[in-house]
């Protein structure tokens, strides 16, 4: 021990004798849960690698990230007969000597003698190490403020009690940032910009309280929102591809533009949603979302477009077992269920609790216990704690006990999903419908709804969720509403010169452009050219996709298919090359060519030895363009 601390210790030893009155005041002011535990958490003492680990470290065990202050108080003040604190000589407390490296400490130096945290702990021990003083500050809310001070930016955390009194707590909250590549938040609240062009959320936690604030990098650019409606033929193309995975035929386009302009868009949306082609597309959407087996479930007529009934039927069908029995570990099944149906990544709680996450390891294990196979005699199977060996009682998330429920009773799972988790299921479904139609979810990744990954626009997600609930989970009604919003009908941003990754507009600023994958593009091209659907299935790397588009057999087959649009045009188009090229443009790009485009296409067409060869050369060029592969 250095001489400085010795003297300080001696002085502190005298303190209770000289100032009993002061001690009473101190005693009343301290609160372990708000003043002490958060400082240990912030210093990293309660992390999984240290004392927060499942078995603690070096004989001392704290709750992970300080989630259980009562237990931590017991560990510090009561365990080892209270040897970790020394009320008579606070400076000699193990809880101070270890982290300041006055004694050997496996975790190394956490605090210096002069750190504020050390002073606070010392005063708290001097005050008798109370769990909660009578007049201790009791925060009920936490807020974050962004400030510009001197050179750099800071975030400041403020806690308020029920009367509105505020106190600074920046020195004891745990910060986290939604994009650690963009920003690091230092312990004292200083912001270390990694990417000044980015934006991110900053979160802070103090005990059970949390708060967040949105941070815009010092060089971040606010992208101007695109408000104008997309060109109508572009919109029609977008609508057809989103709902039917093909572009409108020339007949579709003529019929559409012959109708009354005021009502034709809404009428077309309704017509497409009611058609059989959409039902098939919707099936593929469900297959991808709910991991349904390839075998199509026999959905009863009225349930076809109701998501709650679809979920119930999918869960109830024995087919589900086939899809999920590939996962032997009940935890894998529970995680797969949570991912699809609730949009939750429960697996994060498999290894340890996370400071901002709602679900604990206990929640994860008891939920997994619901997914244990029934025993051959029909009795519910048991799930044993993989580490401790004890039987885990099954329990749904958010519920206190469900010992009677089990995997062998899938109706219980469906009931819980549709009744208890109605809101969460609806939010997840709404976000998926948004991603389907707008190209990107308000929450991304789609299966990662959590506090530290908030939606891009909470009000908008709530509005779509409200629509879904109001229509009793009817997908067609909700899509009809969504497709008629201004948000869906907006134009994409027109060329904006040099592109930088960080200026990519978000979903709200402009319609995102999606690039079709090889099979999507090939299928749409074949349908537009009246050629047979290509064989699809295997995915491919971007480079081999491009190589195939250049030289592959499937393009060749579409261009040479007997009776395709090209051969019909060549046979009946006569000598009117302009009309033929216009027809190709309508079929492949849903628009007429500009004068300049027409001119270059005519040149290529005329250079070919025959009309059919000319049309093939033009069509092949169009299939290779940037425009046809981009869903704008």
């Amino acid at each position, binding site marked *: 021990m250095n001489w400085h601390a010795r003297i300080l210790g001696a002085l502190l030893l005298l303190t209770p004798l000289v100032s009993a009155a002061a001690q009473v005041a101190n005693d009343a002011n301290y609160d372990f849960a708000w003043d002490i535990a958060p400082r240990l958490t912030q210093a990293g003492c309660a992390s999984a690698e240290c004392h927060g680990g499942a078995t603690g470290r070096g004989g001392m065990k704290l709750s992970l990230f300080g989630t259980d202050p009562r237990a931590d108080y017991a560990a510090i003040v009561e365990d080892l007969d209270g040897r970790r604190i020394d009320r008579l000589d606070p400076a000699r407390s193990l809880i101070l000597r270890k982290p300041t490296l006055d004694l050997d400490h496996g975790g190394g130096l956490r605090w210096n003698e002069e750190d504020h945290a050390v002073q606070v702990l010392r005063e708290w021990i001097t005050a008798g190490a109370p769990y909660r003083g009578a007049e201790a500050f009791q925060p009920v809310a936490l807020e974050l403020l962004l400030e510009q001070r001197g050179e750099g930016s800071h975030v400041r955390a403020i806690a308020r009690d029920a009367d509105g009194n505020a106190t600074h707590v920046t020195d004891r909250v745990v910060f986290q940032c939604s994009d650690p590549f963009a920003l690091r938040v230092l312990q004292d609240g200083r912001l270390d910009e990694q990417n000044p062009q980015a934006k991110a959320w900053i979160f802070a936690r103090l005990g059970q309280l949390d708060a967040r604030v949105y941070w815009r990098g010092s060089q971040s650019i606010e992208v101007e929102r695109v408000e104008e409606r997309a060109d109508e033929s572009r919109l029609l193309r977008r609508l057809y591809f989103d709902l039917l995975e093909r572009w409108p035929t020339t007949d579709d386009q003529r019929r559409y533009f012959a109708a009354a302009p005021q009502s034709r868009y809404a009428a077309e949306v309704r017509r497409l949603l009611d058609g059989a082609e959409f039902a098939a597309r919707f099936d593929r959407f469900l297959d991808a979302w709910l991991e349904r087996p390839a075998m199509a479930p026999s959905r009863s007529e009225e349930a076809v477009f109701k998501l709650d009934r679809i979920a119930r039927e999918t869960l109830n069908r024995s087919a589900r077992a086939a899809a999920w029995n590939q996962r032997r570990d009940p935890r894998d099944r529970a995680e797969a269920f949570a991912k699809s149906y609730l949009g939750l990544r429960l697996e994060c709680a498999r290894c340890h609790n996370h400071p901002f996450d709602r679900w604990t390891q206990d929640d994860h294990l008891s939920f997994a216990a619901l997914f244990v196979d029934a025993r051959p005699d029909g009795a519910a199977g048991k799930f044993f704690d993989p580490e401790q060996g004890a039987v885990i009682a099954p329990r749904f998330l958010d519920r206190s006990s469900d010992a009677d429920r089990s995997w062998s009773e899938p109706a219980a799972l469906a009931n819980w999903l549709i009744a208890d988790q109605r809101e969460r299921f609806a939010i997840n479904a709404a976000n998926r419908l948004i991603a389907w139609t707008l190209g990107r979810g308000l929450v991304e990744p789609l299966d990662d709804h959590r506090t530290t990954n908030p939606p891009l626009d909470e009000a908008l997600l709530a509005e779509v969720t409200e629509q879904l609930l109001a229509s009793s989970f009817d997908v067609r009604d909700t899509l009809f509403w969504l497709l008629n919003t201004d948000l869906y009908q907006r134009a994409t941003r027109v060329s904006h010169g040099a592109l930088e990754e960080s200026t*990519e507009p978000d979903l709200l600023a402009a319609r*995102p*452009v*999606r*690039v079709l994958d090889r099979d999507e593009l090939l299928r749409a091209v074949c349908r537009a050219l009246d050629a047979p659907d290509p064989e699809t299935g295997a995915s491919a*790397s971007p480079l081999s996709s*491009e190589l195939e588009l250049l030289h592959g057999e499937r393009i060749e087959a579409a261009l040479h298919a007997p009776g395709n649009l090209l051969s019909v045009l060549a046979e009946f188009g006569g000598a009117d090359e302009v009309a033929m090229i216009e027809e190709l443009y309508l079929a492949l790009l849903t628009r007429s060519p500009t004068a300049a485009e027409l001119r270059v296409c005519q040149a290529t067409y005329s250079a070919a030895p025959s009309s059919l060869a000319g049309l093939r050369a033009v069509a*092949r*060029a169009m299939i290779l363009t*940037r425009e046809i592969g981009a869903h704008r």
Partner: protein
Amino acid sequence: MKSIGRREFLAGVAGAAAWPWFASHALASASSASKQRALILLWLDGGASHLETFDPKPFAPTEVRGPFSSTAGVREDLQICERLPRVAALLDRCVLLRGISSGEGNHDRAATFLLTGHPPSGVLTHPGWPCWIDPDLSFDPEAPLPRYIALPTAPNASRSGFLAAPRGPVEMAIDLQRACLALLYLEARTSIDASLDLRNALDALDGAPRSEAEATRDRFRLQALALSRSKAARDAFDLKLETAADRTRYGSHFAGQALLAARRLIERGTRAVLVNWTGWDHHRDIGKELGYGFPAKLDALDQALSALYLDLERRAMLDRVVVAVATEFGRTPRINLQGGRDHWPRASSALLFGAGLKRGVVHGATDARGEEPLEDGIAPSRIGATLLRALGVDPTHEVMAPSGRPIALVAKNASPLLDVLT
């Protein structure tokens, strides 16, 4: 309006530093290529039976032993299926792994475990470990070829995962129908020059890309065109340039020509070639499926694999090329009622040879019926750890995953099998 010619179109991107290998000039110099280790991975997709390949049980009851016996050999532990005699003759120079064991009996999940080196996770799509052959992403700007190629397709688990797409495999189909055995997609059947010129003109009229996604696709389109126009690249893919004797030695079947192509590509600067041989999922008539045909699967495997070994030896490439034959799981020790075998992830096997690997080593063993490993099984993730180590890559090296979490190249508990490494 000025139309942009094909050459100008290419010239405009020649300086794109992120895509250096498409510089269409000379091959990588032999010296730079020879310094770096390279991988040839023969993937038997579907789950090849361990009992009919590298872990036969000739003394087990018929329903376990199956249709084939084993090779006679001096060392009992070096006996393999009798239909692999040419490979058997080389076993004193190879590493045999037996008792690769996991709980994953589903194709995708098991393949993920072995090919990514991590247990399957719902949260993070790990890249296939061959993507890590160059973990620092130090592209060789002189190399004319993609660094990682899959023939003819890539299993999902071998793809780029959370890494950017250029780090994943580039698939190249092999055309066995055409006598030339050239690789597909590199030459047009008909001239498409007129269409390419028109395409460039139309793209120019369209203006700049409207999003990062479009700009990224533009780069791949340029790369594809450059690759198909580079003589060096096209020669690398052209098996007609191999001698007739070599092509015959490897065999006129997919496995033979694909492994020959793999050797050819590695010689010219590619760092990893995954040969994806599909059709090893034999739930019925396993004896017929493996033992009959023109050629039979096992005969093709025997011919192609032994030819590859001898060819690499003759060309003095064994000290820089790592070769592995692996599959997602083994098959049920007891033959089922359809005469086939079902999925059995408890006891699979693999064969390795080449750079960084010992010779004539058998690691692990299974019980008398090929049901369970005798001692601790080999976790599938350890195969990747071992092969990365043989390739000179540290499997414990950590990279940042998109969530900002550091991730080791293969799972932390997957240690390399040190007793098979030199």
